[in-house]
């Protein structure tokens, strides 16, 4: 890949054993890459393995198989020093703003934690930096001395963001960073994320359900379904020409802030049972709910195929549709 590639994921698989002989195939062989300064939006059904992907990419969970190259180096073979460097440059904003903050630390200590590891700030510098960060995420310095349980969900999420930004990373996995925020703060946070990206050339893996926000911020978009990537493309391409049946259904379900629109009528209703990631069958994973499924779909697992201009889709019947 080009030298600007920051992160490359190759055939990543993450299985969780549950009980006897059964595994949850949370992530089942996905590949993608993110270039410097670029945002890769990851969308998909809840439970399809987005967070798991994000976690594997940062080495929080050890992948079952597959390789993750960061800056051309396999993160599995990092030396200690490299790993520290990686931890500084790759950060995560956690999905659950409640669980990810230590209930016994004040906000300022939470934010300072990462700084203490990677920088040598004096106390004053650190305090200034905390104030700065709080300001960046739209909170006042008063919050520095509060405890997480005293904050609302959105406020906590912003603390999570501030914590990640504190170590000045160049790559951030944003696991639904805006889900818990109200629109005005969503806008603030997205603006913030975009601003730091512009300033410092951050790369993001942006996981979200808010498709309009994903559209707003991402350069590339990947659509996941049950542990696999079913479609990836440049943002505008995918929004204007979604090819995979699931992607189509997904995009049609985006609610519009328009009280006159009868959204329930326009969206594509998916029939059928949502299959579970436990011991998924062979074949296309979407076939159970796909209106176009054929025998072939049930038998063979479709591979991602380039449909031109970097638009890749995993569907057997893509040409026909």
């Amino acid at each position, binding site marked *: 890949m080009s030298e600007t590639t920051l992160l490359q994921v190759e055939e990543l698989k993450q299985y969780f054993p549950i009980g006897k002989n059964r595994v949850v195939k949370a992530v089942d062989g996905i590949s993608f890459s993110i270039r410097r300064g670029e945002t890769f939006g990851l969308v998909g059904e809840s439970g399809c393995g987005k967070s798991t992907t994000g*976690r594997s990419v*940062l080495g*929080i969970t050890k992948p079952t198989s597959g390789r993750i190259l960061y800056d051309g180096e396999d993160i599995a073979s990092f030396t200690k020093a490299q*790993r*520290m460097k990686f*931890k*500084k440059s790759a*950060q*995560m904003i*956690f999905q*659950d703003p409640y*669980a*990810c*903050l*230590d*209930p*016994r*630390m*004040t906000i*300022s*200590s939470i934010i300072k*934690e*990462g700084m203490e*590891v*990677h920088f040598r700030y004096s106390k004053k510098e650190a*305090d200034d930096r905390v104030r700065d960060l709080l300001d960046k995420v739209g909170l*006042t310095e*008063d919050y*520095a*001395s*509060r*405890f997480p*349980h*005293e904050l609302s969900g959105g406020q906590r999420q912003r603390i*999570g963001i501030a*914590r990640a930004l504190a*170590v000045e990373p160049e790559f951030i996995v944003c696991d639904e960073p805006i889900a818990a925020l109200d629109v005005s703060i969503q806008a603030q946070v997205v603006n913030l994320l975009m601003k730091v990206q512009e300033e410092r050339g951050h790369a993001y893996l942006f996981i979200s359900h808010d498709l309009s926000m994903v559209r707003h911020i991402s350069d590339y978009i990947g659509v996941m379904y049950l542990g696999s990537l079913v479609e990836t493309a440049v943002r505008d391409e995918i929004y204007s020409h979604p090819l995979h049946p699931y992607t189509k259904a997904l995009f049609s379900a985006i609610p519009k802030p328009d009280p006159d629109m009868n959204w329930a009528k326009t969206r594509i209703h998916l029939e059928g049972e949502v299959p579970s990631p436990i011991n998924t069958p062979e074949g296309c994973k979407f076939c159970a709910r796909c209106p176009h499924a054929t025998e072939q779909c049930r038998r063979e697992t479709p591979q991602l195929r380039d449909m031109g201009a970097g638009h890749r889709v995993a569907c057997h019947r893509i040409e026909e549709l």
Partner: protein
Amino acid sequence: MENKNLKDEQFRIVGCDDVEGERLGRPQTTYWKDAWRRLRQNHLAMFAMVLLLVIIFLTIFGPAISGYSYEKMSADMNQTPSLKHWFGTDSLGRDLFARVWAGGRVSIIIGVVGAVITTVIGCIYGSISAFAGGRTDSVMMRIVEIISSIPYLIVVILLSLMLDDSGIGSILLALCIVGWCPTARLVRGQILQLANAEYVTAAKTLGVSNWKIITRHMLPNTMSVVIVNLTFRIPGYIFSESFLSYVGLGIKTPDTSWGMLAAGAQGSMFFYPYQLLFPALMIGLTMLSFTLFGDGLRDALDPKLRR
């Protein structure tokens, strides 16, 4: 609202240049500072602290206050408490007030220092074990099992051979040698519960060293149990000290301790109950103050109980 009184000039858009708005300057604190502040506000805990300080004060100056030597025998044997002998005298005619406080020196030091040492060791060991997990955990836990299974009596007899003097140091060593094991298991159990917490993952992602994760995140979150454990160790050690004298590691006459005073008064407890009462009372009061203080500390350390 008196809309009538509103002047026109008040309806002039000025916008929000001072977006900061009003705010209350909350004091900048850290977890520990805040905890300390809340602890100070807890009257019961402060009372406990004062009580403890009084006890400590008396263990230092008590023997002198009484006007009697704690080791000097006299003809006034088995006296009931009176103006002359505030706590009465023992079967050798020694003044119990002086003896109780002299004994308190040993007991307080052993109880408190012993409890603190074992708790610290136990915390460190237990958290390392739980945090490391896997094989390390397994090996570390087996070691705990082995250490706590070897008969204590044999260990202390051997120890008493190796340590010539039987000063407080040796007693502490004897108490601590296995005393940390239960704490280690307790802490490990607590930390296993926390190991999957998202905030620990977050800290790991930040590259926070394991040591810091343990001390910053895990231990404070196990503190409430650790505090209870600590308060229970104190009377435990006070009694254990008198057991150690069984193998020759205890305090030597004429020095004494609360445990020894209580044990010594056992035989005639129905006749001279006060000989037992005072040392037992002191153990109880020490325990009480530590419990109250521990409760206060526990509340102070739990930001959710912040009021």
